[in-house]
C-alpha cells in the first residue's frame, strides 16, 4: 500500500508542475507574445510598461481563474455523479448552469442596482433552482438515467429560451453576449477572481473534508445508512456544494460544458474511485484541462477568441459518445 501511495503522490506533484507550466504558457502566449524568459522579470517589476500591464492585469488573473473554474466544474461534476449515482450527471446537462446563467443575464443586462456579492448569491439561487427542478423531476416515480438527462434537456431548454428571449429584447451587441453564453474567459479581471475565490476555496475544501461520507454514500442507500450516514444531510450538502461551485463558475465564465463529465471519468479510470484520492485529482486535472483549453481557445484563431466552451464541447462530446458505446451493458 505504501508503494502505491508514494506513486500516487509523485504523480500528483508532477501534475502540479504541468498545471504551473500551462499557466506559464498562458502568460506568454496570446495576441501579444511575451517571451517566456522575460515573464519573471515582468511579473516582479514595478514598471508600468505595456508588457507588465498585459501580464499582471490581464493574463495572471485569467490563468488563475481558468485553473480555479476548471477545478470547480470538475469537482461539481464528480459531486453530482456521486449524488445521483449516475455516471452521466454534469452541471451543464442537469440544468444547474442553465438556471445560473438565466439569473446572471437578468441581473447583468437589466443592470439591477446590486453589488457583486449579492449578484453571486443570486446566481447561486438560480443554479439551485435549475438543479433542484431537474433532480425532483428525475426522482419522481421511476428514476432512471434517461429521465435525468431528458429532464436536464427540457429544463435547460426552458431557461435557454427565456435567456435568448431577453437577449433579443435588449437587441444590442448579440455577438459579445453570444460568446459569453457559449462560455468564455475573455476580459476577466482581478475583481472576478476575488469575487469567487472565497466561495470556491471554501466549497472545494469542504468537499475534500466530506470524502469519507461520500465513499459511504456511493455504496448505496442501505449500506450508507447502516454505516451511520444521514442520507438527507449528505444529499443537501452535496447539492449546496454543486450549486456554489457551478454558480461561481457561471458568474465569471458563462456556461462551459462537459468538463464536469469527462474529468471525473478520466480520474476514476486512471487512479481510483475512492473519493479521497479521486477528488483532489479531479480538481487538479480539471484545472489543467481548462488552462490548456483556454490557451488553445485564445491562440487557435488569433486575434479572434473562440469560446472555451466550444473547445471543451469538441473534446467532450466524442468522449461522451464513446462512454455510451463502451459502457452500454453497465450504464445504459
Amino acid at each position, binding site marked *: 500500500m505504501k508503494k502505491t501511495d508514494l506513486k500516487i503522490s509523485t504523480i500528483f506533484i508532477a501534475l502540479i508542475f504541468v498545471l504551473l507550466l500551462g499557466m506559464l504558457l498562458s502568460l506568454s502566449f496570446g495576441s501579444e507574445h511575451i517571451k517566456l524568459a522575460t515573464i519573471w522579470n515582468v511579473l516582479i517589476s514595478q514598471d508600468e510598461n505595456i508588457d507588465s500591464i498585459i501580464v499582471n492585469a490581464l493574463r495572471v488573473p485569467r490563468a488563475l481563474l481558468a485553473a480555479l473554474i476548471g477545478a470547480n466544474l470538475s469537482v461539481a461534476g464528480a459531486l453530482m455523479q456521486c449524488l445521483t449515482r449516475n455516471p452521466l450527471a454534469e452541471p451543464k446537462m442537469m440544468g444547474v448552469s442553465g438556471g445560473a446563467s438565466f439569473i446572471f443575464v437578468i441581473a447583468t443586462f437589466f443592470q439591477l442596482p446590486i453589488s457583486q456579492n449579492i449578484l453571486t448569491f443570486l446566481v447561486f439561487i438560480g443554479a439551485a433552482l435549475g438543479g433542484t427542478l431537474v433532480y425532483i423531476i428525475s426522482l419522481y416515480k421511476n428514476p432512471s438515467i434517461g429521465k435525468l438527462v*431528458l429532464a436536464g*434537456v427540457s429544463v435547460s431548454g*426552458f431557461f435557454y429560451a427565456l435567456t435568448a428571449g431577453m437577449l433579443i*429584447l435588449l437587441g444590442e451587441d448579440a*455577438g459579445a453576449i*453570444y460568446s459569453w453564453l457559449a462560455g468564455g474567459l475573455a476580459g476577466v479581471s482581478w475583481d472576478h477572481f476575488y469575487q469567487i475565490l472565497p466561495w470556491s476555496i471554501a466549497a472545494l475544501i469542504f468537499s475534500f473534508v466530506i470524502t469519507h461520507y461520500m465513499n459511504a454514500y456511493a455504496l448505496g442507500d442501505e449500506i450508507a445508512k447502516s454505516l451511520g450516514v444521514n442520507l438527507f444531510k449528505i444529499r443537501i450538502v452535496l447539492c449546496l456544494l454543486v450549486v456554489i461551485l457551478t454558480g461561481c463558475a457561471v458568474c465569471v465564465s458563462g456556461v462551459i460544458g*462537459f468538463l464536469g463529465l469527462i474529468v471525473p471519468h478520466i480520474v476514476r479510470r486512471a487512479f481510483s474511485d475512492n473519493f479521497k484520492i479521486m477528488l483532489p485529482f479531479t480538481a487538479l486535472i480539471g484545472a489543467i484541462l481548462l488552462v490548456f483549453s483556454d490557451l488553445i481557445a485564445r491562440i487557435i484563431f488569433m486575434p*479572434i477568441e473562440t469560446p472555451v*466552451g466550444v473547445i471543451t464541447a469538441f473534446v467532450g462530446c466524442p468522449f461522451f459518445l464513446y462512454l455510451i458505446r463502451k459502457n452500454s451493458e453497465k450504464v445504459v
Partner: protein
Amino acid sequence: MKQTHFKYSHNQYRQIIIFFISFIFLFLFIAICSLIGDAKINYISLFPNVISNYLNNSILIEYRLPRLLIGACVGANFAISGAILQAVTKNPLAAPNVTGINAGSSFFSVLSLLIFANTNFFILPLASFTGAIFAGIVVYFFANKKGITPLRLILSGVAVDAFFHSGTTFILVNNTEAVGSIYVWLSGSLWGKEWSEFLFILPCSIIGIFVSIVLSKRINILNLSDEVIIGLGLNIKKNRIILLILAVFLSSTGVCLVGPIGFIGLIIPNIMRTLFKYDYKLIIPFSALGGAFLVILSDTIGRSVLAPIEIPAGLISSLLGSPYFIYLLLKSRF
C-alpha cells in the same frame, strides 16, 4: 410503450369530417392571426366586402399571409417528422430536436450560408438535408450496438446535438458581423418570409404529408413488437430506414427555411397519440394540423406580445413546450 390494438372503428367517417372541419378552421385561424400584429389594421375598413378588402391590403397579403402559411407548412413538417421518429424508435420522447437532427441541419445550413454568401435556393436545402442525414447516421451508429435501445438513442442524440450546437457557435463567433441575423434564425423565426419561400415549402410539405399518409399503415405495423412485424412479413430494417429518411426530409426542409423550431415535433404527436391510440393513419394528418396551429399561435404571440420587438416563434414554442414535456416525463414510465 403499450402494445397497440387499433381497431378500425365504424365511425371513421366522423373522423374524416372532423379533419376537414379543422382544416377549414386552420385557414380561418390564419386569417384571424394575420389581423393581429404591430402595424394596426383598420378593422372597420375591411367591411363590408371582407374578402376583396383583405386581398387588397398590402400588409396582410405581402407580409403576414406568407409567413403564416409558411408557419403552417413548417409546423406540419416538424410534427409529422416527430410522429415518425417516435414510431420508428418506439420512444415517445424522440423528436428532431432531441435526436440531434435539427442541430446537424442548422450547423450545415450556417456553414453553407457563410461559404456561399449569396444564398442560393438550391444549396441551402441541400446543405440542411445533408446535415440532418449526417447527424442521423452518427446518432444511429452510436445508439446501435446489438440493437437500438431508446435510452442509448436519446443519450447519443443529446451528445450529437451538443456537438453540432457548439460547431454552430464556433462558426458564429468567428464571423461576428453575421451573428445578429443568424442568431434570430437559429432561434426559429418566421420573420421576413416571402411568397417565393412559400412556393418552395408547399410542395415539400404536400409530398411529405402524402407519402407519410401512404406509409402510415407500415408505421402502425412497425409500432408492434419486432417478432410480430417479422411474422407479418415486413422488412424491419428497410422500412425503418425509409421512414427515417422521410422524417429527416420533413424536418430539414423546415429548418432550412425558419431554423429549428423546438418542441413542436415532440408535443404534437404525443397529444395526438393520446387522442387516437396509436393509429398512425389518424395521428399523422392530425399531427400536421396540430403542428400548423401551434407554430401559427407561437408566431402570433411572438409578434404581438412585445411589439414592435419580435420574439422568434421557436422561443415561444420552447416556452410553451418544455413545461408540457416535463409533464410528459413525470407521467411516463420511461
